[in-house]
């Protein structure tokens, strides 16, 4: 179950083929795995290692460096509360306090019903709209405690299911390079000369 499905293996191979070195695809593939399972499992790391030709220890080494990868299940909705300077200046501390109270868990915890994981986050690049939060990496701006409450109620009632997918899903659109239009990966060992358009004349 936690290995990639056949359909996802096809996508994984498509992604790997875009890079001159297969290992470059590792982070996108870890995302793919997290999208499928909600978190990264041991079996998944073994399989990804096989796909890109490195040991599972190397996969683990890369995966654990990055904050977005989770190694145990999280709630259906991961709520990341920004607490860096601009948000802090605009009341992020109080909002976090309120959120902990509302959900009945401390930051880092998951509610008993498995719906919400509350987490601290660092700057989310929305500083003028402070305080901000992200639910499964979808933004909410200028959040007041009352806004937070209605957000939780809406999520519980399933009203935002169209906008906010399950944890692990990032972009809902994938890049697809059509076979007849793509150049393909340009590997160092395959190229000895400068590109064709650099001959001193216009390309058109």
């Amino acid at each position: 179950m936690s290995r990639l499905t056949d359909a996802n293996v096809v996508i994984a191979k498509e992604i790997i083929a875009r890079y001159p070195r297969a290992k470059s695809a590792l982070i996108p593939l870890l995302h793919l795995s997290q999208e499928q399972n909600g978190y990264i499992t041991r079996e998944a790391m073994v399989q990804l290692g096989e796909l890109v030709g490195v040991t599972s220890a190397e996969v683990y080494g890369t995966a654990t460096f990055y904050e977005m990868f989770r190694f145990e299940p999280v709630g259906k909705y991961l709520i990341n509360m920004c607490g860096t300077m601009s948000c802090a200046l605009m009341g992020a501390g109080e909002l976090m306090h309120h959120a902990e109270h509302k959900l009945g868990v401390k930051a880092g915890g998951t509610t008993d019903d498995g719906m919400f994981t509350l987490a601290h986050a660092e700057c989310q690049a929305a500083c003028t709209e402070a305080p901000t939060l992200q639910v499964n990496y979808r933004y909410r701006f200028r959040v007041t405690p009352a806004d937070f409450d209605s957000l939780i109620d809406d999520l519980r009632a399933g009203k935002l299911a169209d906008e906010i997918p399950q944890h692990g899903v990032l972009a809902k659109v994938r890049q697809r390079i059509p076979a007849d239009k793509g150049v393909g990966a340009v590997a160092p060992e395959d190229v000895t000369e400068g590109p064709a358009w650099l001959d001193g004349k216009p390309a058109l």
Partner: protein
Amino acid sequence: MSSYPHAPGFVAGDRPKVVTSRFEYTDSFTIDRYLATDGYTAIRKALSKPAAEVHDEVKGATVLGRGGAGFPAGTKWGLTPQNVWPRYLVVNGDESEPGTYKDRLLMERDPHQLIEGCLIACYAAGLSQCFLYIRGEMALAQERVATALNEAYAAGYVGKNVLGSKFSVDIVLHWGAGAYVVGEETALIESLEGNRGMPRLKPPFFPAANGLYGQPTIVNNVETLANLPWLINNGVEAYTAIGTKTSPGTRMVAVSGHVKRPGVYEIINGITTFRDLLYGEEFCGGIRNGNSLKAFVPGGGSAPWFTPDQLDLPFEASQVGPAGSMLGSGAIMVMDETTDIPAAALTLTHFYAHESCGKCTPCREGGTWLERILTRVVNGTGTDADLQQLIEVGTSICPGDFPHASNEALGLAAVPFPYKMTTICFVGPSAYAPIHSALTLFRSEFEARVTKRITIPVTAVGVAQ
């Protein structure tokens, strides 16, 4: 509360718009809108000239890098060694400097402009493949850029024989997974190779000579590349007519914190001053509730702080540097009179301590020390010795004089930016920058915490632990 898609504080006006010209349209991210507003005309124009000529135009316009260091893009492209192939383009869209969010908007609201900028760069500098690295947390930006790339491939603007020419290049969308340090160019390359995102030592790993897969690699910021279509369409003269000789063009600046209208504004480089931006009616309109300004961070969380004394400085690196700070990534965080300064500094120190990759000891250990010591000072359980300890730990990360602005009241003469450092990249010194600024400018607030044991009630600022 508002959800995405969301229009930030853009103010209409007759100011020149180089990169935000399409932001007023609700469908600014679609290929139809892009084509209807001069989209993909610049690449056609570029392809009708020899690549060297296009390179010269970018060089002649002195397009300064908008990521933080401010190095001119055209010059950077010229640093690649002759006759070493292939060369790569890596687009740095891993924007995560506290206070900054121009690149996210450019990717979400005008992805085709970025794609066209990438094409121009690849054509001019002879780059064979482009990797567009977007920060992991930016799901919408990834979605918009993926859609735009799919449209551009289908229409023949990207891929094999662009517009029927000899120019062929793939643009590969890549996305990160949450690590601030990956915004550093060598760490970005490590991450793109599938490794832990730790910076490489320079030398020997200058990306222009020895970058991705050991090949010459150009790493450019999203905003830098987004400037190129306008530049090629309108010419060097029109570009350099905006701004000053040393800082031509415009730049996007995010102003956040205690101002009336926080927002991202496209301002004129070298001319607009901090006062224009913070108090001007067409920009932020002053400090909230008519309060007075206490201090501001002029260039992202890593920059030493300024006080009202420096408000009249323009957005010009050659003036802001000698005045003791940097323009960095174009992010201003404003603190009004109600701000609890030690607590505000702690939010930034916490950030950098948290984001240390762990490669260099002074940053890995020092950052955590700074955070712990400052935490107890803020909590009112620190001692006098703690303030000295903060400086000692900070000095072990950045030996020598730390840059700061001149301040007559405190008898300080400016020490120019940048600082010396004992780490490979700027994350370590950045943990100390807010502490140094806050301690230098507002020492009495720290002393009140440690000697008189006054716990100042935290109102607006609190660090969540």
